[in-house]
């Protein structure tokens, strides 16, 4: 009978203490960064909700904008104006931007003309919004009049490069193997684009456009010089109009308490509108991109 020696015990304990310490430090730094990022986000929301919630009522949301000194009055015309002007801007910028991006990615590709357009749209993304406002003021308002349409033009100029860029990036994500598969079945270029590329990218395109709309809805600068910020409802694109963002600007800079309270209420309303659009963008993206297995 041979004497069986027990096998040496396997040591599975963690000896790399310094490595563990480094890992913990890194995790701690990330937690700190997360908290620092969260502070402004939470504070903005908290302040706006706290100051604005008391003002919000049905009368406030639908009522006419009175004199700034008056405690009565609401922001009804501004909500109408924001929806109208943003909607008109969307109708101008989104179809144009999507078609432009389709041209750039599917047809123009690397041609000098496409490269120029692509470069210009990148530059336009960086143009400050107040410059867009001044631009529309100079070429439109000075020639015709202050109007919701002029404001919509300004917002559309801001949205256009964003829509082009986000759409082009989504089209770029569609693998070429899908295009080839479609061509190999005898499809024309238009068929490939409409039947395969757009459906494959539609979730991202829609969400990019909704985010551009949400962004435009909160823009102030392009409207400052273009719509005149009146106090009564104007449900037409012609003639001076008003919007939440510019109402916030004029009320918040007013010396009257009532006006300042109205500015907080309007801010909360605007945030709510943008929030709804953002959530919609998320839902649409998920709905359109998750394949049903």
């Amino acid at each position: 009978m041979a004497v069986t020696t027990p096998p040496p015990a396997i040591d599975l304990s963690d000896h790399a203490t310094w490595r563990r310490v480094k890992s913990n430090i890194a995790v701690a730094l990330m937690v700190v960064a997360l908290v620092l990022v969260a502070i402004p986000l939470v504070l903005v929301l908290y302040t706006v909700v706290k100051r604005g919630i008391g003002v919000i009522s049905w009368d406030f949301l639908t009522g006419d904008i009175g004199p700034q000194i008056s405690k009565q009055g609401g922001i009804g015309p501004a909500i109408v104006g924001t929806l109208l002007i943003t909607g008109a801007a969307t109708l101008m910028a989104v179809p144009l931007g999507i078609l432009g991006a389709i041209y750039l990615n599917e047809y123009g590709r690397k041609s000098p003309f496409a490269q120029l357009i692509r470069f210009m749209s990148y530059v336009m993304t960086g143009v400050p919004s107040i410059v867009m406002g001044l631009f529309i003021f100079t070429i439109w308002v000075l020639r015709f009049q202050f109007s919701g349409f002029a404001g919509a033009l300004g917002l559309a100029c801001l949205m256009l490069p964003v829509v082009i860029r986000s759409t082009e990036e989504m089209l770029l994500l569609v693998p070429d193997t899908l295009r080839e598969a479609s061509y190999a079945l005898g499809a024309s270029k238009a068929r490939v684009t409409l039947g395969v590329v757009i459906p494959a990218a539609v979730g991202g395109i829609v969400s990019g456009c909704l985010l551009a709309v949400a962004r435009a809805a909160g823009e102030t600068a392009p409207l400052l010089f273009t719509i005149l910020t009146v106090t009564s409802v104007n449900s037409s694109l012609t003639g001076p109009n008003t919007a939440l963002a510019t109402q916030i600007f004029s009320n918040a800079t007013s010396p009257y308490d009532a006006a300042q309270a109205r500015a907080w209420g309007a801010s909360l309303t605007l945030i709510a509108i943008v929030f709804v659009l953002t959530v919609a963008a998320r839902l649409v993206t998920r709905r359109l991109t998750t394949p049903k297995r």
Partner: protein
Amino acid sequence: MDEHHEPNAALTDQPVTAPAIGAQASTPYAATTPETVFEAESVSIYYGDFRAVTDVSFQIYQYEITAFIGPSGCGKTTVLRTLNRMNDLVDGARVEGDIKYHGASLYGPNVSAAAVRRRIGMVFQKPNPFPKSIYDNVAYGPRINGVRGKDKLEEIVENSLRGAALWDEVKDRLKKSAHGLSGGQQQRLCIARTLAVEPDVVLMDEPCSALDPIATGRIEELMQEIKSRYTIVIVTHNMQQASRVSDRTAYYSVLTDDKSDTRTGVLVEYDRTERIFQNPRDPRTEAYVTGRMG
């Protein structure tokens, strides 16, 4: 009645049926010459200034499986992609020489690439189903070619999926996304999608390189089943696959010119598959198929 059945009697079944199989496959090459589908004459293919393939000539025959083999960079996929003008999609790609398809020049002045591809379908290296339902994947080709009507489309979809040996696996989930299928099923779906436009030729660019051996075996069986109705050209890196499935094999190689530091693909030898693998004429072919090179 069965009592005299020996336990190992089942084993004898195989020798009994074997001659029948042999009889079916006895004459792969009939005495009559099969019809020529493709005739390439001194074809050179360029990408910009780079000459990828130089002076290739061959004939591909109807209802045969022709395999293109050779090391990486020898231009076999490039040649395949010129057969249905897929290389038109590559910037700077250019073809010199002439490729005739049933006597008509593929690169003639009034030839529509879309019309060419409708007759000459292609299956790609990686399964690339559209992000649509299984049904819509197969119906895509017929739809873009103008087939309308639910009944007609359903018939085409079923026949194509049956043709690709996929029908039984997917018939209850036609409306589900094609991306839920396994890799092998996806590749058979891509074959079904190609068959749905009723092509004359099916080009296959390494169709099994992303698949496991079982899925590969099913695709190879499928090729044998459909070759009575389709002419098949397959590019493969797998020499066993070429020898298993093909009737003719073309061996391509890379020619390196040290002086100008250029490389280009050439067709070294093209013959019946058993000749290429058992008794090749060219020493380079022999070195490649015996595994001493490449």
